[in-house]
């Protein structure tokens, strides 16, 4: 046992114990929202190839159901999962316990209440009609108040850290924690409190959506990947000295890239041009991230196959790289001229939200849940089902959304094709995507069952306790010896 270099067992257990209940509450809410959102999204997808489905009730028409489903997945699942993971990881890497966790329960309650009211408001007809900002005004303060508590916790935990050094995951988490409330409150002010004039509204909207994906979901996914690669491979991140540069380039370029969602739109042309330039500048962080991640994974396929978390992390890396590449390609004007408003754009966003972020959160949960609860997974078979269904569902959806996007792009540009015929030719692809979504939902149900069994104290008799092995110290390359 290399006790000399690893922190004493009590300390790490202390951290995990302090984080246990807040994290479980956040993850539990996240999974509940994930299932609900999955069902809603599946229903909305079915409405695309069968418009009569649920269309007689005002609350479930596609125009309300689809945005509601998206908001559930983003604000219900996405944020809660990010809170669970972020708080735990920040505490771990700062080597300090999560203090006064009771306040986090209040925060969780407020956040979930806000999302419930918001989604209910969308279904009832109070939608604001802005992408990912559809939730009506009356929930804004609730969400911001809840977030304030959580954000302050994350930032405070970081500031009272016991460690000398700061790791890449902490930069990304800190950044994300800081950026979101500003993105959200500025968007709310400029769109609703003192609404901007005319096309400024979609410009603010594009800025917000880009910020949400690039400065909240992407950094958290990256934080997870940067943490779990060395953690589970036992070797440092390859070419780590490039990582700080990658971080700053990524955030600086992403910050101004929102305009690429408005290529060709009736807005001053410098805005989409700026977005395109910034997207092209993202090639640099893309290269750094590829070197860091794929370089670390090189030669470790066996380790990946043997580790549940690493499999999800590997999938997350693939999703992230693909999402970034796609975003860069779709920003180009000549490409955007045919692909704008097609399912290609849905694919670009969905790949980041689900194919990268959500998958990373699954992997992270498979790692920290046994450590927080002290139990093992009751059904390893279900973990296999979760991974398999997720992998297959993602593959199907990538093919399906790309296929639908291609069909749309090709036929929209063809003046001879009547719009009705376009809708007709997409029906098959929509059905294909519904199947993919159904698979993902099945996988998530499997995960949810495992989560209930591992976290619910009632079941403690039938779930075996976990023996958490002591992790060895990470060593550098043989020449330099260990830390």
């Amino acid at each position, binding site marked *: 046992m290399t006790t000399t*270099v*690893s*922190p004493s067992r009590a300390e*790490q257990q202390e951290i995990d114990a302090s984080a246990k209940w807040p994290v479980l509450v956040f993850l539990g809410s996240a999974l509940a929202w994930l299932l609900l959102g999955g069902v809603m999204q599946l229903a909305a997808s079915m409405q695309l190839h069968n418009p009569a489905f649920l269309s007689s009730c005002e609350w479930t028409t596609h125009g309300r159901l689809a945005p509601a489903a998206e908001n559930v997945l983003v604000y219900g699942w996405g944020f809660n999962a990010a809170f669970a993971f972020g708080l735990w990881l920040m505490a771990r*890497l700062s*080597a300090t316990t999560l203090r006064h966790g009771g306040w986090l329960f209040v925060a969780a309650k407020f956040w979930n209440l806000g999302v419930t009211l918001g989604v209910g408001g969308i279904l009832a007809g109070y939608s604001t009609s802005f992408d990912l900002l559809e939730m009506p005004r009356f929930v804004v303060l609730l969400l911001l108040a809840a977030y304030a508590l959580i954000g302050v916790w994350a930032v405070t935990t970081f500031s009272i850290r016991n*460690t*000398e*050094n*700061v*790791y890449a995951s902490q930069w990304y988490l800190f950044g994300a924690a800081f950026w979101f409330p500003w993105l959200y409150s500025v968007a709310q002010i400029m769109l609703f409190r003192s609404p901007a004039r005319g096309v400024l509204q979609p410009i603010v909207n594009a800025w917000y959506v880009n910020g949400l994906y690039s400065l909240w979901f992407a950094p958290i996914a990256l934080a997870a990947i940067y*943490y779990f690669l*060395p*953690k*589970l491979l*036992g070797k*440092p*991140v390859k*070419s*780590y*000295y*490039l*990582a*700080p*540069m990658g971080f700053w380039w990524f955030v600086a370029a992403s910050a101004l890239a929102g305009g690429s969602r408005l290529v060709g*739109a009736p*807005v*001053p*042309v*410098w805005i989409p*041009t*700026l977005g*395109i*330039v910034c997207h*092209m*500048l993202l090639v*640099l962080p893309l290269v750094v991230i590829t070197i860091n991640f794929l370089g670390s994974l090189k030669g470790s396929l066996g380790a990946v196959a043997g580790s549940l*978390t690493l499999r999800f992390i590997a999938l997350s890396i693939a999703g992230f790289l693909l999402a970034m590449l796609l975003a860069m390609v779709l920003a180009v004007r000549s490409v955007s001229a045919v692909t704008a408003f097609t399912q290609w754009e849905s694919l670009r966003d969905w790949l980041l939200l689900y194919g990268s972020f959500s998958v990373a959160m699954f992997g992270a949960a498979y790692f920290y849940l*046994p*450590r927080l609860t002290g139990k*093992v*997974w*009751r059904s*390893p078979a279900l973990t*296999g089902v979760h991974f398999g269904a997720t992998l297959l569902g993602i593959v199907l959806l990538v093919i399906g959304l790309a296929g639908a996007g291609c069909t749309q792009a090709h036929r929209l540009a063809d003046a001879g094709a009547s719009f009705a015929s376009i809708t007709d030719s997409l029906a098959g692809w929509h059905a294909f995507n519904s199947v993919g979504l159904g698979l993902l939902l099945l996988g998530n149900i499997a995960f949810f069952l495992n989560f209930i069994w591992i976290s619910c104290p009632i079941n403690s008799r039938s*779930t*075996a*306790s*976990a*023996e*958490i*092995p002591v*992790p*060895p*110290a*990470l*060593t*550098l390359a043989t020449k330099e010896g*260990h*830390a």
Partner: protein
Amino acid sequence: MSTPDKKSPIEGSKASDDSILQVHAKLQHTKPEKPDGYNATPLVMLGVMCSAIFLGSIFLVHGSIRFDPLVVTEHAKREKPGAAGAVALTRAQLGKRVFTGTCATCHQLNGQGVPGQFPPLAGSEWVQGNEERIIRIVLHGLSGPLKVEGHDFNNVMAPLGAVLKDEQIANVLSYVRQEWGNKAPDVEPETVAKVRADTAGRTTNWTAAELEKIGNP
């Protein structure tokens, strides 16, 4: 993957958090290995960064068309149009407003007038003829028998010299002289001012006979 026994081991991690932090901090500040004395990566990265910013700036300026808020396409002319950006309207275009408000009641919007009552302006030889005559008509009105395009009229047109300014008279006359297929040059405000000055003392309407004596048709 573990089987559900009592106290079963779970998938262990291969590195402690503390060591991850320490090792990577060291790596961050250590220059990378130099295989044969020279590592080109930092220079290559620097070169790539600089060219990215350089090319990006060129593309940004090229595609932003002076950052003009009213330009929405990157194919627009890149030079500022200068005065052409301002809208230059012809006298005829400006005169339309006056015509619609003042003249159209009788002469009709289509310039056809009302047969037997109000003479047409479209195709009228009076309108396209000597401008001195029509300026006088607008300034002091017209009464008595009148022949326009072969048709007879005998009515009164009220004087408008007190109601319309020189510029407005010039505009409306330019409009009627170029609308509905008429082709005649603009009337300038200076001409109207000169005529107004020349006929300053007149208080009665003109007659067609008097006007036909003025200048060439």
